[in-house]
C-alpha cells in the first residue's frame, strides 16, 4: 500500500461532498445522493495515488482511465476533476447551465478529464473494455477503471461486457459497483433484485473484492489488490449508502434526482463539516 495520509484524504472527501451539495443546489437539479455514495471511491482514485494521470495533460496517451458509467453521479466526478486541477473550481457553480461544459451528464467533448459520454446506463463498461483492449494493442501499461451503479446492473449490456472482458482476459480493467442499494423508484431488492452481486461477477470469471465503500482504507486496499491481478478483470463491489453524509438524503431514497433546497443544503454543509 502506498504512503497515504488518511486524514488528508478524509478531508478531501469532505470537500467533494460540500461541492456536490453546493453545485446541485445552485443548479436546482441533479443527483446529489447518487454522487455522495461514490465520494470515497473517486477520492481514492484521484487523490489516493490510484490513478496515474496528469491534469495538465488530460489526453496523455499513457494515462490511466476512469470511466463513470453511472453518469448521473457526475457531480462527484466534476468535483474531483476540479480539485485535481483539470479546470477551475469556479466552473462547478455553472453545473447544468446553458453553455457550461458541466452538463447534466458527462460529455467527453465538453470537459477535460471526462473519458466517456455517459448517462444512458449500461454502456460504460463496454467503453472501458475498448480502452483496455487498446492498451494491449498499443503495448501500453495503463489501467482502466469503470464505476457502475447497482441499479445499472439491471442492464443486459453490463453482463455482455462482463463476459467479454473475462473472455479477453483484460487484467488492466477494474469495475467498481457503487452498491448503494437504491435506484430511482425503490430499493434494488424491490425493483429488480440484482443480488447476489459479487457471486454474479465471480461466475462471469471476474476477480471479486467486496468492501465498505466509505472506508478509505478498504477502498485503497481493494484497488491495490485489483492491480495485482493480471490475467482477469477485477470487480470491487463497494457497499455504500445512498446520500452518504447528509441525513435527509440517507433516510429517503425519493431524493434521487432532486437537489436540496437552500435551507436543507445549508444544514447539509454543516453536517458534512
Amino acid at each position, binding site marked *: 500500500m502506498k504512503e497515504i495520509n488518511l486524514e488528508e484524504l478524509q478531508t478531501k472527501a469532505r470537500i467533494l461532498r460540500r461541492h456536490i451539495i453546493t453545485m446541485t443546489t445552485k443548479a436546482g437539479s441533479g443527483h446529489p445522493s447518487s454522487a455522495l455514495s461514490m465520494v470515497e471511491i473517486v477520492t481514492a482514485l484521484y487523490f489516493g495515488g490510484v490513478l496515474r494521470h496528469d491534469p495538465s495533460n488530460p489526453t496523455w*496517451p499513457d494515462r490511466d482511465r476512469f470511466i463513470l458509467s453511472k453518469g448521473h453521479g457526475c457531480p462527484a466526478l466534476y468535483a474531483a476533476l476540479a480539485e485535481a486541477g483539470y479546470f477551475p473550481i469556479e466552473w462547478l457553480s455553472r453545473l447544468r447551465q446553458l453553455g457550461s461544459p458541466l452538463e447534466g451528464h458527462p460529455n467527453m467533448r465538453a470537459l477535460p478529464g471526462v*473519458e*466517456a459520454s455517459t448517462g*444512458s446506463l449500461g454502456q460504460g463498461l*463496454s467503453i472501458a473494455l475498448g480502452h483496455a*483492449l487498446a492498451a494491449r494493442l498499443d503495448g501500453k501499461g495503463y489501467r482502466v477503471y469503470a464505476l457502475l451503479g447497482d441499479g445499472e446492473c439491471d442492464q443486459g*449490456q453490463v453482463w455482455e461486457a462482463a463476459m*467479454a472482458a473475462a473472455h479477453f482476459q483484460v487484467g488492466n480493467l477494474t469495475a467498481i459497483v457503487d452498491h448503494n442499494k437504491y435506484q430511482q423508484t425503490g430499493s434494488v431488492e424491490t425493483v429488480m433484485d440484482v443480488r447476489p452481486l459479487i457471486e454474479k461477477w465471480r461466475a462471469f470469471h471476474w476477480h471479486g473484492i467486496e468492501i465498505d465503500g466509505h472506508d478509505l482504507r478498504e477502498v485503497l486496499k481493494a484497488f491495490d489488490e485489483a492491480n495485482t491481478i493480471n490475467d482477469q478483470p477485477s470487480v470491487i463491489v463497494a457497499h455504500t449508502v445512498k446520500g452518504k453524509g447528509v441525513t435527509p438524503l440517507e433516510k429517503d431514497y425519493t431524493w434521487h434526482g432532486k437537489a436540496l433546497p437552500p435551507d436543507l443544503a445549508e444544514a447539509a454543509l454543516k453536517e458534512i463539516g
Partner: protein
Amino acid sequence: MNIGRRIGLTLGKATRDAFGEALVELGKENPNIVVLDGDLNNSTKTDLFAKAFPERFFNVGIAESNLVGVAGGLASCGKVPFIASFACFMMCNAFDQLRMSVAFPGLNVKVVGSHGGISIGEDGPSQMSVEDVALACALPGFAVLVPADQEAAAALVKAAAVHRGPVYIRVGRPKVPIVYQNGGEFTLGRANCLREGRDVALIANGLMVAAALEASHLLHQEGIEALVLDMHTVKPLDEEAVVRAAQTGAIVTAEEHLIWGGLGSAVARAVASRCPVPMEFVSLGDTYAESGKPEELFEKYGLTAEAIVRAAKHAIARKKDV
C-alpha cells in the same frame, strides 16, 4: 440477382465480399484499423481480416450492444474500428449504443451492416434490414453509404476509412450485377451520374441502381430519356446533384428500404427546399417482407425496373401540375 441482365450487366460479387476484401487491404495500409464482429464473420466477410490480422480482430459474441460500446472505447484511443454484423442487428439492437457511445461523442467508428434489404431472401423478415438507412441518418454526424456493386463497395469502404467521423455502410448478401463495368470514381457525398437524360431523373442506390439503369433502357425504347444518378451517399446528400436532376422536371427515387426515412425522404427534402418538381418513390413502402427467393421478393414488393418505369411516367405526367 438477375437485375440488369437484360441490358447486359454481368453478375459480380456480393457487396459484402467486396467489403471483406477491401478491409484486408486497408488492414495492410493502416495498423490502427481493428475489426469487431458479433459472431457473423463468415457471413459479413470479416473472416478475411480475422485470418490476416488475428491480433486486431475481436469476436465479441452475439452481443451487438457491447460490440458498439467496445468500438467507442477503441476509437477514443485512436483506433479505427470497423464493426460488422447484419444490418438489422447492428442498427436495431444497438441503436442507443450507436447514439451514446459513437454519434454523440463523434467517434471515428465505421459501422458496416451486411445483409441489408430484402435481397437476403429465404431467411425472412427477422434477418432483413429495411429501416437501417433511416436509423443511420437519424444519428447526427454519421455519413450513410449504400454502394451499388463490388466496385462501389470496395471504393466506398476505403473512402470511409479515411473519412474522419462515424460512417454507416450497408452491404448485401447476394451476388449483384456490376454497374461500374469499367470502374468508377467514388467520392463520399458526391453522386455518380451514370446516364444523361432530359425527361426524368432516376435517383437510386444499392441494388436499385441496376434496376434504374434497366428502367432507363425500357424508357428509352418508348422515347423517354432518363438521367440516372447513383446516390451512394444518402448523408451528406449531394444536393447539387439533386438540383441538376430536377432540371429534367421530374424525379423518381428507388431504394431497397422502407419509404420512411431513406433515400426518397432525403431527396424529397432537398427537392422541396431547393427545386420543387413532381416526385415518385419506389421503395418497400411501409411493410416487412417475407421469406422467398430474392427475385420473387423484388417482384412482389415492387422493386423492379417496371415499377420504376411506371413511377417515371407518373412523375412526367405530373410535370404540368407544378
